[in-house]
């Protein structure tokens, strides 16, 4: 173990159990593998770790399993619980979570690439619509509507690194509602207000939402 300084040697050695279990980050895995390749004594110690790893699994596997009554007991307790209130955002949360869970990493990667191209094209189109509408400036005063097709909207593509939980929190914190999507390019039509809003007000909302790390792209929508 004379190829590394003592601090690095001790640091790497502490990581060996996680290396055996395959739970290290890619960077740490690489560090450990390089050290193992260059240090026969460390490699010998790693074999000890692998023995412990195998026998710990075997020991735990011999512990058996709970009886079939365990689930019965659980559901008897659940039955005794008070009726559950439906959470208002449940459907939306579940929908978003299920949508992201249904995509494989490969699909997500392709979606991101396709989105980059589609968004570039759509951004130009949307900007064009916004500029045209600036000439109007006429707004109707109407009562708030529950019709998902009525209100003020934006088009949002969420950042690739945002988890479904991040997105759900973002939507709830800003009182937003997904009206449609995903559309080509990974875009969602998101309602920001239940009534129509002046263009400068929508622009202000868009600017504010854009600062959130969950948002990859945002523009006003019709």
């Amino acid at each position: 173990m004379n190829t590394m300084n003592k601090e690095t040697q001790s640091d790497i050695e502490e990581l060996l159990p996680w290396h055996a279990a395959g739970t290290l980050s890619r960077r740490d895995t690489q560090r450990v593998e390089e050290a193992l390749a260059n240090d026969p004594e460390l490699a010998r110690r790693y074999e000890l770790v692998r023995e412990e790893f195998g026998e710990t699994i075997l020991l735990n596997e011999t512990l058996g399993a709970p009886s079939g009554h365990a689930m019965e007991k659980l559901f008897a307790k659940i039955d005794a619980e008070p009726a559950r209130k439906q959470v208002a955002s449940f459907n939306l949360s579940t929908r978003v979570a299920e949508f992201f869970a249904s995509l494989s990493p490969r699909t997500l990667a392709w979606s991101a690439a396709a989105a980059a191209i589609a968004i570039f094209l759509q951004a130009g189109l949307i900007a064009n619509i916004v500029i045209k509408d600036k000439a109007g400036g006429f707004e109707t005063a109407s009562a708030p509507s529950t019709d998902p097709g009525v209100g003020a909207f934006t088009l949002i593509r969420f950042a690739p690194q945002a988890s479904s939980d991040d997105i759900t929190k973002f939507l709830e914190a800003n009182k937003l509602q997904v009206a449609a999507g995903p559309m080509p390019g990974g875009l969602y039509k998101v309602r920001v207000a239940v009534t129509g809003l002046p263009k400068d007000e929508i622009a202000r909302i868009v600017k504010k939402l854009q600062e959130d790390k969950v948002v990859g792209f945002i523009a006003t929508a019709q």
Partner: protein
Amino acid sequence: MQTTSDEVLIARIAGGDRLAMQVLFARHHVRVYRFVLRLVRNEATAEDLISDVFLDVWRQAGKFEGRSAVSTWMLSIARFKALSALRRKPEQELDEETAEQIEDHADNPEVALAKKDKAAVLRKALSKLSAEHREIVDLVYYHEKSVEEVAGIVGIPEATVKTRMFYARKKLSEILKEQGIDRGWP
């Protein structure tokens, strides 16, 4: 075929979906049971505790924020329940099977015979570790938890996780040495 992720199951459970609860239970109850059993060392207590753990999952699903894996979250709940149970019954009787596993270090014919089988001696030594060391060894090797996840479950800093694991392994070597197996480490 793609299985439903634990996170989606939790979202469904938050909405009162019993089928999702059954799926989650079927998927994780054995591992949770074994984790609890290694802590409380009593099969009946461990079996009672897992229904409490999953009842908490049912109750708390709506508050699950996805900051950790569902299995990590459940092991945190399980650990809390197990330690609470141990506090309630500090002189809990151990069943025969588990008591055997923690017999004293004295050499006897059984151990002498086991010395011929290094793997068996190693398993015996793993059973003789303290609860604190047993817990961390199980979380890392059997439950395949990362440094960060173990820190979250046990409630200690990541640096402490690494040193505790190191000392658990060192203690394991000492026990093995007492049993006549010198691993040449530490």
